[in-house]
Every structure is written in structure tokens, then in C-alpha cells.
């Protein structure tokens, strides 16, 4: 199960942020006026599991007419205000999970990635492992926290709090395969209506993280939204590395063994 977030219908209301916090008892984490459009949340963290990004751009939405008055000499190329609700990607190949030494992070029966608060010891290995910078340590608590895709709700067939609240259905929840088909249809529809900027992000099972369990329809490059353009599971090279380590170990062992053998014969020879 996963999320498809269609940012083209997001109204930036932040219901997802509040519904998530209410349901999961995530603490309020500071009153900071950032001056960055309407984004006073700034990013995902241990205390923010949904984050709505606001990007003001001086270019028109397809089909939208430049709204600014040309006579003032101001921008004539139009204006668009992108809004997108970000969340943990629940990677198919999740590095956080790979590196967790305690079994606190695990893949659930729904294919989602969850931190178990009763197991996590706060070692923090998962933090640098995440290619999206999502998982984070909660101050004053020491443990790692992130979106659980409302694991408790899924267990009884209820959709996650954010998806349920979303007023315009920008956040959609369901079986990934079904969501991917829906996203493809939506993308085609957007392209047909001239919104050529529209693209899917994280939907491809062949990408660097094996596809995201939470993927997006974006209206611009991922970097614009603060998303890495080509994320790769940081543990991707682990098998190869282990292989090399293995080779190295084997060669080390064999060379030591060889040296012993050789040395032995030398000493044996010497004794002779």
C-alpha cells in the first residue's frame, strides 16, 4: 500500500500536516516565521511527517493567462504557485531499514517501512542512510521518528489520516499498482491538456530505490520541490562492497595462510 500525491490539485491547506500530528500525537515543533512563501514548516523531521512545500514561480501554468499587469512593467510571463505535500517515501529498497541494527525499522505486511518506538535505541544509523533526509531524531526523546503510513490504521483497513483529510484528494492512498495506473492516466491527461511540465516522481520500480511507496505527480523538476533528482538507496553498493570485503577477506586470509605456509616451510627449512 502507498500514497500517490497529485500536487497539481494541492491547495496548500496543510490539513495533511495537522491530521497527521493529531492522529500520531506528533509534537508541535516551533513557531518560526520563515518568509519562505507560506512554508513555515520547512521540511520533514522527527516532528513533521507531512510537509507542504510552497514554490512561487514567475511562469504560467499551462492554460493560465499571465495575471500580472504588463503596464506596470512587472512580470508578464505569469505566475504560478506550486504546492506539494511531501512525506516519507517508504522505499521499496529502504536503506534506513537495511542499516538498522536493532530491528526497530521493519517492513510491514503492507510493504511500508515503520520505526518501532519500543525497539529503537536512537543509534541514528538510519539518519544518514536515508537518501531523502526524512528520518530524524526527536530532541528530548532520542529516538527516530517518521511517517508510519498510519500503520495502526492500516491494520483495520482505515486509510492514513492525511489522505483521509485531504480536501481535494491530492493525497491518494491505495495499493501501489492501482495508484501507479491512476497516476499514469492523470499524467496523460495533464500532458493532453498542455501541461507538459507534469511528471511522475518515485513511481518507477526500476529507479534507485526500487520505486517509492509514496510517489508524486510534480509540475516541475524535483529539485524545485527540494527532492533529490535521482535518489539511490545508500545501501545499494553494500552487496558489492561486502563482496569486495569478502574478496579482500578471503585474499587476506589466504595470503596470511599462504605466508604461514610459506613461512612454515621457510622455518622448517631453516631448522633443517
Amino acid at each position, binding site marked *: 500500500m502507498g500514497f500517490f500525491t497529485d500536487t497539481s490539485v494541492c491547495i496548500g491547506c496543510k490539513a495533511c500536516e495537522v491530521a497527521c500530528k493529531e492522529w500520531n500525537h506528533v509534537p508541535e515543533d516551533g*513557531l518560526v*516565521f520563515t518568509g519562505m512563501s507560506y512554508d513555515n514548516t520547512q521540511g520533514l523531521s522527527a516532528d513533521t511527517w507531512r510537509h507542504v512545500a510552497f514554490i512561487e514561480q514567475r511562469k504560467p501554468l499551462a492554460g*493560465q493567462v499571465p495575471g500580472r499587469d504588463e503596464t506596470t512593467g512587472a512580470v508578464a510571463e505569469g505566475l504560478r504557485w506550486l504546492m506539494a505535500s511531501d512525506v516519507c517515501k517508504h522505499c521499496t529498497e529502504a536503506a534506513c531499514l537495511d542499516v538498522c541494527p536493532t530491528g526497530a525499522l521493519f517492513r510491514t505486511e503492507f510493504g511500508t517501512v515503520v520505526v518501532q518506538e519500543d*525497539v529503537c535505541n536512537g543509534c541514528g544509523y538510519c539518519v544518514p542512510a536515508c537518501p531523502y533526509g526524512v528520518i530524524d531524531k526527536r530532541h528530548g526523546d532520542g529516538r527516530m521518528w517518521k511517517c508510519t503510513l498510519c500503520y495502526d490504521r492500516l491494520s483495520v483497513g482505515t486509510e492514513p489520516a492525511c489522505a483521509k483529510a485531504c480536501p481535494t484528494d491530492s493525497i491518494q492512498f491505495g495499493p501501489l499498482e492501482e495508484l501507479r495506473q491512476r497516476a499514469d492516466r492523470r499524467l496523460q491527461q495533464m500532458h493532453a491538456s498542455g501541461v507538459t511540465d507534469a511528471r511522475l516522481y518515485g513511481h518507477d520500480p526500476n529507479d534507485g530505490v526500487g520505486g517509492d511507496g509514496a510517489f508524486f505527480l510534480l509540475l516541475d523538476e524535483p529539485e524545485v520541490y527540494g527532492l533529490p533528482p535521482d535518489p539511490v538507496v545508500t545501501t545499494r553498493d553494500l552487496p558489492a562492497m561486502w563482496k569486495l570485503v569478502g574478496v579482500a577477506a578471503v585474499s587476506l586470509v589466504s595470503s596470511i595462510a599462504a605466508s604461514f605456509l610459506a613461512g612454515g616451510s621457510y622455518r622448517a627449512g631453516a631448522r633443517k
Partner: protein
Amino acid sequence: MSPRSAKSKLLANWPVLHQLRHGDPFGRGIAVKSETSAKLQPRTITADKVVKSVCPYCGVGCGQNVYVKNEKVVQIEGDPDSPISRGRLCPKGSASLELTTGPSRRHHVMYRRPHSAEWERLPLDQALDMVADRVIKTRREHWEWEHEGKYVRRTMSIASLGGATLDNEENYLIKKLWTALGIVQVENQARVCHSSTVAGLGTSFGRGGATTFMQDLQHSDCIVIEGSSFAEAHPVGFQWVMEAKARGATVVHVDPRFSRTSALADLHVPIRAGSDIAFLGGIINYVLQNDKWFHEYVLNFTNASHIIREEFADAEDLGGVFSGLDAEKGHYDTGTWQYEGMPVQSASGNRDAQYDRPRKSSVSGSGKPESHGSGGAGLAGEPERDLTLRHPRCVFQILKHHYERYTPEMVRDICGVEPELFLRVCTAVTENSGRDKTTAFAYAVGWTQHTTGAQFIRACSVLQLLLGNIGRPGGGIQALRGHASIQGSTDIPTLFNLLPGYLPMPHAHEHESLDDYVRGEGTEKGFWGSMRNYMVSLLKAWWGPAASADNDFCFGYLPRLTGSHSTYDTVMAQLDGKVKGYFLMGENPAVGSANGKMQRLGMANLEWLVVRDFSLIESATWWKDSPEVATGELRTEDIATEVFFFPAASHTEKNGSFTNTNRLLQWHWEAVEPEGEARSDLWFMYHLGRKIRQKLAGSTDPVDAPVLELTWDYPTEGRIEEPKAQAVLAEINGFDADGSPLASYQQLNDDGSTACGCWIYCGVYADGINQAARRKPDKEQDWVGAEWCWAWPANRRELYNRASADPEGKPWGYNKALIWWDEDKALWTGHDIPDFDATKSPYYRPPAGARAAEALSGIDPFIMQADGKGWLYVPAGLTDGPLPTHYEPQESPVTNPLYKQQRNPVRQHFSREHNRYNPSGDEQGADVYPVVVTTYRLTEHFTAGGMSRWVSYLSELQPEMFVEVSPELAAERGLENGGWATIITARNAIEARVLVTPRMVPVRIDGKVVHQIALPFHWGHNGYTQGDSANDLTSLALDPNVHIQEVKALTAEIRAGRRPRGPALVELVEQYRERAGVTAQTGMGALS
């Protein structure tokens, strides 16, 4: 467990074995699932009960499910069954759990002694007793039997404000008790938010509510959102705009700000704040000039063909004023605006002239246009008509003449909108209107809060009638209201000028007897013709057996009006020392009403103040921490006001109904009892009334008779003796002589045999069943959702839906069918309940002399209007003109490009010490305040902040007061993004953080760049997030029809940096006033 099996379990749980056994060798899946994880259960499942409720924030009326465990609310989320919200909630609705159960809720009564600097605790019962004593004493000491020789039976010493966040039942008890006590200054948020809606829509169509309902927006082919940021202020309702958009509808947003609504629109049109009548007038002119009007609809369903009196002169011909202006007194004699051959205004036609004169003067002051919330203005006789529409004095020709100068170029000169962009809107609207297509308009307080507010809405009404979009699916005018029950607090009005169901409050001298009143206010035709039935039934509901035909059904017990007693008049009366006691029932005027300083100084002049709210809002604590205390204008020890704070119960802690923005009454159930001393307003009013009646028992003073004879015996329940809200609803619904519930207002009589607390709500308790509590799920019924709760009138969802069919009763277009005439069954049928006599044939024509409903023909869809027609031109009912015309706001940097008349000549404006106006246009000193200011609501906050600034999850999303400025203005003034700015008007100065954004657009007017800035109005100095209030900048400049304040367009100066502290703040404001040469005369006078 034996040691052996324990050992084997331990072994089996050894990770390697455990992982292998679960087929999860690397321990990344199910094998590592902890015991806690395995036992996780959502609290929605473990809850003991789920209670059906309704969101307490805006007027959309989203369904909520409230989950209760061990008598505690543990979760609140959207109700998927609701056909309006479909389970969704905005951030505010999603924060309902913290709102209702969070740490900022107060649960104890607080009391501030005169001159004290501190609160102290007081037991609830003692506090209630003290309030009862003060009401009795103040009322007795300041009782008025007569005012200037006229019978008034009232006290002007007590006032009450608030009700839009409360239940209908609570509003009903507030209005009932205060009225019986002779208190007339009863007001609520509806005055400052949407009163102009009632006048604008009411005079145009016969009822003051939105003509459509939320779900119907999905059928629109074009939606124009103007004067509203729909997506931001009503996010869950906006899903229906998105549904329409997904179907291919064009969405247009006209607004000074590029907002979150604009971001989702196909077209954003930046407009100069306050110029919308010119913009809409421009479209009207385009429609008329290019023959885009819907001929058959306009000819049959509107008053286009009616002939107007010869004496009428249009504003076009009198330099911007209509005929009948008394410039000295600042009001119109509306006699010349009437239909030809019909008696003036008064329905009786034989009332003597002397009797009529005072009536007109009080009409201009008393907010009477608001009484058209359910019933148009009175007319008598048959209008003369010219169905060829060629008569030079027919409405159609007058309309054409009136708007012919509203060309695209004029629109550019007034609104700052380029003709190309303007014409795109014209095209979108006209191409999407007609037989097979419909366009809807949605607006909110961006239109209502102007000195010409009612006329803004009138302009839209004219346009929608011309295009044939009223009463049809996907059409209509969606008035977006911003409180959970602000429609309800207008229907069951905690408003000074109304009685329940839009019956006007009687005026001193004007209505000596019930018959005079009915003659003066009723009409001969239409459903308003049965007004006496409604009034007598109301009096029976209130005074029961004491009301009889012999005593005019206690009509004399009603206190009388002598002009305007709106909340702003009350504030001025407070400053003048005339008001002694004040109740604030869930309203925070220190932040939410115009001119915050006057609000607070007014309260400092009271003897006692009662505040009922969740937390200690600014209106409760101004005596120790208001901005005026900081500047030294007030000193706590000098303030003699006694302040009582009563903690209020939340929507989850009481039973009751909210009426949403589309007239839908939705019942919400009590989930838990309120904690501590928190109580519902129903409890407060009932028990206060009970105490007052106990204390007055045995009094033979006629002053007390209305209180003692009042029906006030509601059953109570539970530990706290909560009155049964259902019993109050049953009284509102009404009952017959046997006490059986009535099913329809058509059953009401005028002989005292029926009682009904609000005739338009009659039917909500039909068959003794609470129809507002109906919850048939969305998926089990059609899109109209007729079995979800109950809408007035008579559960009709789309008003005037007779107009969805052509004169013969057939749907105009295949896609646009709503109701139609079934010839075989001789019945109107369809998706919605007909807003029409279901058996009246389209071919019915009234016989001569018919009256009331019978006088309406089969082609009269506007059944509350005296002539059954939609009014393009309003011959009676408005005080500032029969047609909308562009005037500049009270404060504007622009000289009116249309007329030499700058402002609405009959606007209400007040020259007072703390209410000076900035100079306008080319007046000297106007350049000192050159920037246009508009105020607005954020998604993340709610009105004056009482329900959002104390909620941490909302506060962190918008943590500080800010001002939105364009990059151009920021460069000019040296404003830095994230820095501070000070904004200054002739009233006050505030500071705000700066948000520089290209979303704010300077407009060019007459070769001059006009900068606009936008201020959210939520902040004040209490709560979790604090900041200066936008309303400290605004002034009292009011619409003359309904006394709504102009806060959506004013002027100011903005400069970089924070404002001074202490007395230096007052000095700064004074310096600017001096520099601009502001005097007591600035901005005053009708002909200015």
C-alpha cells in the same frame, strides 16, 4: 509454563531461528515486529462510541465523527457519510481535537473586580447570580418606556454580541430572553461578515441565503470566484470546484491577491480592491451590448419589462447620485425608484402621510434591507410592463443606459485590469451560460465588507439573472459564510433589527399594533403575504397562553427600534457612556471588529462585561494588557469595569444544530459532558433566565411582565442540568393547539392556534422527528442528498429551482434538468424538492384580486418576491440605489473615474476622535496614505483567532502576523522579506513581518501605480501566537443598508521597521495625521 517450555520458547525467539522460521532471514520484516507493534490498534476502533458531529469552524458544515473512550474524546475526524465533505477536513477541522481537548481551554469562571489588576476565581453559581443581579439592576435603572414620545419598552443600557459560532437553539434562547428583557442591542458576527449578503440577495431574489448548495458546483461549466479566496477560507467546499474543473469547467479568480485559490484557477485577474462593481458592471454591459443575455429567461422570470416611474433619474444623469437624494441628511427618498402605477413601498397604500414620514427616516437607519432574508420588499397592485423591452423607462432600457459607460476601457481605468484580460472573463462567463451551460459565482466577505457591500452582491445578482443562471444546476450565487452557524444566527437572528425568520423588529411609533405592523411590513402577494401567520405564531411560541387575540398576542411586549442599534452604534454608545453591561457570546470584537481601539475603549467604559469563550481572548483581558494599556491611554487601576469570564462548552460537549452556508441545519450530538465549569450557551441562557425570573417573581411592575410571562420551562438533563436542545428545536419548529409538531409553515395560522419559534425552520421537527439529525450516507442517495439533515425552506436545496425549467415547465437543457412539470401527474418533480407550489401548473395565471401565494403565476419562480420575479432593478428595499453603481471606498488613493461623486453618498460615516479618515483621491494629504490595504483570512487561522491562535498545531503553520507586499513596493520602501514593517492609518499603527511576494500586484490607475498590501486579520496579543491586529487600522465606515464595515479596501502608509512602543506609538499616528492634514471633516459629507 514449565521451565522446559519457557526455555524452548526462548530458544525459538532467538533472532536467528526466529528470522529463519518467519522466512525473513535478514530480520527486516515481520520477524522483527515487536510485541507493541503487534498489539497496535487504532483508537478509532477501540473507542466506546462514535458520535456524529459537525465541524465548528467555517460555514461549509463538514461532517465529523467524534470518537469517545472512557468519557474522553480521543479523536475527531471527517465523516465519510457527509455528502458535503465526504469525510474530508481542512487543517482547522483536523485540529478540532486540540481545540476541544487541548490545554488552552479554560474550565473555571474568572472574575475581575473594578480597578483590579488580577483575575480571581468565583464559583459558577455565584457568578451567574451576580450577572443576574446586574442585568436586573441595570435594566431597571435605565429603562425606557418612551423615546422621543414614542412607545419603545426597552433598555439601551445592555448589549450582547456573538452567536455565529453557536447553535441555533442557543441563538434562539439569546434572542428570546434578551427581547423579553427589552434588550434590543443584540448582534452577532453576521453583522460584520455577511449582512450585506442578506440585503443584496434578498432584494434580488426574495431570500438572503446563497441560492445554491455546495455539491451543485460540480455541475458548473464556469465558476467565477470573486471577493473570496474559496480554497483558503473554505477548503473542503472547494473540492466541488475541483470536481467541476476536472469535468472541464473554467475557473476564474478575480482578487487583489494571487492566493491559493488563484493557484488552482485557470485565470487569475488582479483587481484593485474595492472596484468590483465596475468589473461586474463591465460584464453586465458586455452582456447587454453583445446580446448575450438569456432572452426567454429574462423576459419571463425577471422584472426587465417593468416600467419605472417617470420621476426616476439615474445616477448617470445626476452626476453619480440617484433621484431622491437628501444630501444634507445623507439619505434617499426612494419614492421615485418605484414601478409605474404602483403605490410607494408601503403595502397598504392607505396609510396617512404623517405616519409614513418617520418611517422612511428610520428605514434608512435601521438595517431594514436585511429583513429581506426571506421575503422581498412590499409592493401593491400590478406593475406596468412592456414585453418588447423597448419602453425607455422599462427596467431593461434603464439597465442598458446605466451600464453603457462600463466599457472595457472604463474597467481598466477603475479596476486596473487590462481589456484583454477583462474580455477573457466576459467570454468565459457568456460562453458558459445559456440553455445547456451554467456559470456559478462564489463570493465571501471580499464583497460584503464595503460601504457599497450590498450593491456588490446586487451587481452579481443582476449579471446572473441576465445570464439565466439563477435556480439552475451549476449556476447560482454561492455566498460563502465563515462561521459554523452564521446563516443560523441570521435566520434565528441575534441581530437587532430582526426577529426569527426575517420578521422585522417593530419600530417605535411605526407599528402601534400588530395589524399596523403587518400592514407595514407584509406584502399582498407571494409567501410574505402570510406574514401575520408567522408573527402571531412566534408571539405564541414566546408568550404562550399569555398571548391572545385580546392583547394583540403580546405584540406590545416587543421592544421597539428607533434607528440603527448595530454593534457599531453600540460601541459608540459605550464610548458615550450609555451602555453599562455587555455580553460577548463567542465573539472577540477587540480583534475581529473594525477599529479595535474604539472597541476596547468602549469596553473600558462599561460597568460590567460578561465574556463567554474557550480561552482568555483579547476582549476578556484588555483591561490589563491591551495596546492602550501599553501606550498609557488606559490605566488598569482607573478602569472600573467588572469582568466575568465564563468558560464555554465546545461543539462536542452539547447537542444542537448548526445551519451551514447553504441553509442546511445539521444536528451535532453531545459526545461528552463539559469539564469543570465550562457550560453551553444554552445552559447559560436558560439558567440565567431562570434566575432572573426567580428574582423578579411576584413583581407587578409591567416592565417585568414580558419576562415573567415568557415560556421558559425547558426540561433539563444530566448532572449539570443541561436544557434539552431538542425541546428548544421543537419550539422553533412549532406545534399546533394540541402540542403536535407542525410539518410546514403553510400550516401556520394567525389566530393563535399555532406556535412557531422560526417559521422558516418549520418542518425541521416534522412528525416529532429531528430532521436535522438525519444522516443517510452520501453513497446511499443521489447527489442532492435530500435525506442528509434538513434545509430551509421545506428541505429545498436549490432555491428558485422553478427557474431550472422553461416557462412551459421543461428543463432548459438536457444536461441542466433539476425539476420539471409532469403534465400527466400535474406535479412538479425532479431531483430537488420544488421551491414552488408543487401542483401549480406553468400555465396558471392568477385571477384578479388574488393574494399571497395564489397571486403568483406559473412563471413566477421567485416566490418570496411580491411580483414573483428576479429583480434586475430594485424599486424598493435598498437605501442606496436601485442599481449598483461604482463608488470609491471611503478611503481610496483614486479619484472616482466614473463620476464626480467620489463615495456612496448615503454611506454611514462617523467623525469621532478615534475614527478619523485618511484623505482620498486628489484631496490634500492623500499621498501620506497612498497604499491600498485589503484584509483577508488564512486557511490556518480562524476569524479573530479565538479558535486557532490557541491551537498549537495551527499556530505553528502561520506563527506570526505578516503583511504581503509586492517586490516593487518592497523595493520602493526598503522592505526586507522576513523583516518588519509598520503600517499606519489615521486611526493607529501596527507592525507585521514582511512577506515579499510577486503574488501581490501593483495596478496602474490613470497612469499612476497603485500599490496594494494584504493583511490577515487573525492576530491579537493573547494566545499561543501573538501579533498586532489588522483591525486596529480600520475605521467605522459602513454600508447604509446593513451597517457592515469597510475593511476590504482602505488606505495606509507602510514603512520599514518595527513600530514605536509606549506613548510614542500614539505620537507617530498623530504625526502622520498632521502631515496629511487630517481633521474631523476629512472624508465626511454625502457629496464627497
